[in-house]
């Protein structure tokens, strides 16, 4: 292998190779970090919600008269929705899951914890009836549902609703494990900060993700406490789950009838839950696509650079190559020469690029509060650039190998 002359030739014309190496270094830094960021964004967007998104829809009503009887209207609305053929369950809710609206309180197994500043565990609150977990399609894994008689009537406002606290809650598994790390949450009492109340965990649902928040806010999205109460009015939210395939027809039916069912209020919004979830994740997906497309173009431009430089170096060495062939080098030797030369350039770039990528990774993880860039991303990036470099140089190298030895005898 003619390594020494190869290096000497590289050194004599170092500008072009240096440029390509610099390009590869930047490309590696970009590709590795962007791939990680895209992965994070898609992972945030794709986390399971625990909700039967495809068969659920929701309704928001608003009152438009001051004498609107919210308590009576809610009762009638729930009766109507639950009586519709094809509806599995309908419940009220204080916030619609999969939007960014959220109320939370702190909870603890020991009331002393709550006296300690910043003590306690965050729990995102949902007010629901005994049909709430069915209306979302949540899976009860321990304990029981609320009894219909437990569900409190609507209070006049959020504060009074807190005072009229029903001492029973259903929580998510994640919340249960956080407050009772021994795994014995069922039947235990939890204490509530700010409002000085307590309640018993009567049921545990496997999973529910309330908001499509980035992972550093997971505690607000996944630690959920469901209270058996109808939220205060006069605006109301209803969540309805239908049998598979019947949602769209039922949505149209409800939209048509719901407004006239009760005087004094109107339907402000009626939407399919999968649509809501999708819209809330639009930002993640859009950023992921933007970053992926930009990264793809960076790689493309780098390939063009490698091909261009190699093609030039082949063209300007046509005669030497012909001479080498004439004095005994085989096609394979010429091909190998260019592949090795390119590999050396790529490797130089990759070494520099790894340092850049790690530095950028540190910066990025502090910016987005993500964990450190895993090293296998870097290894993957290096391997990819080696392969891309070899493929890019292949066509010019094959062309070089095809140069006829007869070229040596001609003048230009």
């Amino acid at each position: 292998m003619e390594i020494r002359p190869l290096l000497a030739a590289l050194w004599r014309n170092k500008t072009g190779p240096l440029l390509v190496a610099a390009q590869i270094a930047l490309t590696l830094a970009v590709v590795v970090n962007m791939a990680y960021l895209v992965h994070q964004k898609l992972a945030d967007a794709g986390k399971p919600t625990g909700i039967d998104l495809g068969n659920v829809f929701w309704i928001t009503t608003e009152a438009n008269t001051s004498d609107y009887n919210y308590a009576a209207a809610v009762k009638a609305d729930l009766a109507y929705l639950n009586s519709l053929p094809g509806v599995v369950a309908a419940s009220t809710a204080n916030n619609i899951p999969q939007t960014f609206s959220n109320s939370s309180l702190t909870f603890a197994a020991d009331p002393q914890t709550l006296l300690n500043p910043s003590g306690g565990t965050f729990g995102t609150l949902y007010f629901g009836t005994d049909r709430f977990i069915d209306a979302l399609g949540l899976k009860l894994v321990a304990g029981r549902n609320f009894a219909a008689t437990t569900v409190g009537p609507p209070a006049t406002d959020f504060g009074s609703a807190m005072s009229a606290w029903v001492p029973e809650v259903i929580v998510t598994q994640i919340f249960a494990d956080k407050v009772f790390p021994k795994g014995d949450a069922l039947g235990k009492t939890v204490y509530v900060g700010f409002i000085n109340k307590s309640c018993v965990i009567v049921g545990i649902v496997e999973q529910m993700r309330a908001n499509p928040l980035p992972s550093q806010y997971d505690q607000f999205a996944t630690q959920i406490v469901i209270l058996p109460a109808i939220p205060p009015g006069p605006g109301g939210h209803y969540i309805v789950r239908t049998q598979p395939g019947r949602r769209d027809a039922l949505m149209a039916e409800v939209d048509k009838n719901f407004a006239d069912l009760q005087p004094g209020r109107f339907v402000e919004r009626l939407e399919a839950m999968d649509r809501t979830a999708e819209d809330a994740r639009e930002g993640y997906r859009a950023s992921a696509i933007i970053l992926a497309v930009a990264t793809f173009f960076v790689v493309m431009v780098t390939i063009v650079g490698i091909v261009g430089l190699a093609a030039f170096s082949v063209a300007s060495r046509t005669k030497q190559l012909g001479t080498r062939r004439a004095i005994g080098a085989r096609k394979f030797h010429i091909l190998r020469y260019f592949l090795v030369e390119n590999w050396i350039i790529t490797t130089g770039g990759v070494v520099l690029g790894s340092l850049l990528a790690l530095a950028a990774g540190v910066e990025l993880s502090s910016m987005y509060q993500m964990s450190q860039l895993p090293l296998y991303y870097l290894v993957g990036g290096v391997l990819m650039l080696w392969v891309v470099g070899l493929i890019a140089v292949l066509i010019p190298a094959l062309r070089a190998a095809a140069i006829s030895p007869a070229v040596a005898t001609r003048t230009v």
Partner: protein
Amino acid sequence: MLIHDLRLAVRSLRRNPVLSALMIGAIAVGIAASMISITLYHARAGHPIPWKDDKLFAVTLDTRDDEPPQSFERHPEYPPFQLTYQDARALYTSDIPQHSVMMFRSGQVLTPDNHGVKPFGVSTRVTTADFFTMFDVPFLYGSGWPRAQDDAPGAVVVLSRYMNEKIFGGANSVGRLVVLDGRSYRVVGVIASWMPRPKYYDLNGWEGWEIPEEVFIPFGWGRTLKMSPHGNTNCVRRSAKMDGPDSLYTQECVWLQYWVEVRNRAERDRYQAFVDNYTNEQRLHGRFPRKNNNRVVNVPTWLAMWDVVGEDSRMQLVLGFVFLAVCVLNTIGLMLAKFLAAAPISGLRRALGARRSDITRQHLIEVIVVGLAGGAVGMALTLGGLGGLKVLMFSGRLAHSHNPDRLVLIQSFFHMDIPVMLAAVGLSLLAGILAGLYPAYRIGHLAPATFLKTQ
């Protein structure tokens, strides 16, 4: 001379169409990437009210308990961005500032007069009277209300331009009645087109990338009608207890935005001293357990504290420039290859009497042509890319929105104004010259003789 060089440049570019296309393409992609990121960044980094930098100040007090920062707090050193009612009231008594305002965002249901139109929800700003003068809100008809109508609230309302168009067909509606949550309010003013970007006076919700409220009513209605704030309500002390509609007005929870307008620097310093005195005095009553950390900040500082630009925009900006750097490196390589391949021609010109500077200049002209062509193609790519991004990022919100102002806001994220366009032209020239400077220098300094020989 210039014409001659230009002609040579075009001829030289046409000699290697593929290589020329690659160079122009690389520059174009680099320009487009950096221009798109600059446009997105520029739209977010704008300053909504630069002429009041030394007059307009947001007021924050560090009301918090003395407790360690929560893991999710990015800037535990900042005080809460809003005030409790008790503190807002106390500060409001100060006559140091020329104007003061306390306010919050809420929502109501508007029932139009003509029965054909269904009632609909509107966003409401519940504010004291100085809001309109302080934030330089332009009026189409009428004006705001006097301070006297704040506390025993007057049944008056100011409408946004869009609201006035929707319910009164755009006519001068001053003196007419609007029904909000079943109660009648008399219109005293209609705002002309007004969209501060970001909505700096209240950055809750999408970091201020929202449109201003649609109706404005006097502050006193908030308590009278038990209106709930539609922003953030944060109980900043453990002792706070939310147990009734009046809790907002009695408990240690922050939910009000508070701004002052002063006449000059000295007045601002006096006001800061006043605020610090207030918290010192309150500390004697067991409030404000932390050291004084009251911030009276102007709009640029306020926007920076909220980080309205956002990490994504900053990241895109860096990525855009790294992208441009890769493209420029690439073009240097290609340009060098191209010039060296054509070196015999230059050698011949040198041999025939051209000076080094002639050769260098001729190649520089060629480089500039490449840069400008790349810039032109890049500009087209930029416009196309921005259009695509708009659909990608906001198709959901565009489809939902009934208010044309929201469309205007979204458009503005992707708007390329004159400074940005000039930046694009400058950037493409710079990119072209950066990419071509070294190759042109190299080719100018080759000994002619070597290139008159064969390989």
